[in-house]
């Protein structure tokens, strides 16, 4: 990306994000450079599932239509395989939320009319935590959760 576009973005989305972060009294540590267009810094600064849900604008309801897979125990919190899936018709987005990470939202996947709401990735976990798979379905937020224990393996030496 060339410098011009970078600068444009800096005074666009980036600056807006900085304002939000500053007004919330947060260190704008991840919003100081040029944020990518459409990237919602406020969402990624949220410190709990409840705060993330508030920004998404819905009350989370546990649902068997949404599923999450991941290991019961991760030997390394830096690399944890996680898959999330929704069987609910009209799912417009999927989210992965780690309650006890410094910031809770890990990823949001925005569906189109041809997307299948079924994605997998590798995430970082700071400590043992509930991990939420969240599906936006209309104005509803459906979720399921799984506790993934993070514990260091090996000799520790």
């Amino acid at each position, binding site marked *: 990306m060339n410098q011009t576009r970078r600068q444009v973005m800096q005074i666009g989305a980036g600056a807006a994000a900085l304002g939000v972060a500053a007004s919330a009294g947060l260190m704008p540590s991840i919003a100081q450079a040029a944020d990518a267009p459409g990237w919602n810094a406020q969402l990624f600064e949220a410190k709990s599932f409840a705060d993330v849900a508030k920004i998404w604008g819905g009350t989370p309801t546990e649902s068997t239509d949404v599923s999450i897979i991941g290991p019961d125990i991760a030997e390394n919190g830096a690399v944890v395989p996680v898959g999330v899936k929704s069987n609910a018709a009209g799912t417009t987005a999927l989210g992965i939320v780690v309650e006890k990470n410094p910031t809770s939202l890990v990823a949001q996947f925005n569906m189109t009319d041809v997307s299948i709401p079924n994605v997998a990735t590798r*995430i970082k976990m700071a400590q043992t935590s509930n991990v939420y798979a969240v599906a936006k379905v209309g104005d509803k937020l459906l979720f399921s959760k799984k506790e993934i224990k993070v514990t260091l393996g090996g000799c520790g030496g």
Partner: protein
Amino acid sequence: MAYPMRMRANIEGDAVVVRVLMTHPEETGLLKDKEGKIIPAHFIQTVTCKNNDKTVLTCDWGTAISKNPFLEFRFKGGKSGDKVTVSWIDNKGDTSTADTTVS
């Protein structure tokens, strides 16, 4: 800085399954280096996935995606020979794009 990607797109049933491996340091901005200096945050923020010219999925990512990110996603309506393109933008404005043919 070069950020190579590896991708595969396969038809599985009525879906195209795409698996993408990216290279990126995915620094959280919370870690310190050996000298005790904060390593600045450096991470992918948005990912756009297209089949031919149609967007099939977009992603917004925070700092908790693992180093060298992996993404598996699926979409309907793809066919053998279609071109799947994945591109990302990180918080420093760096980008990378890769494509593959559905098989």
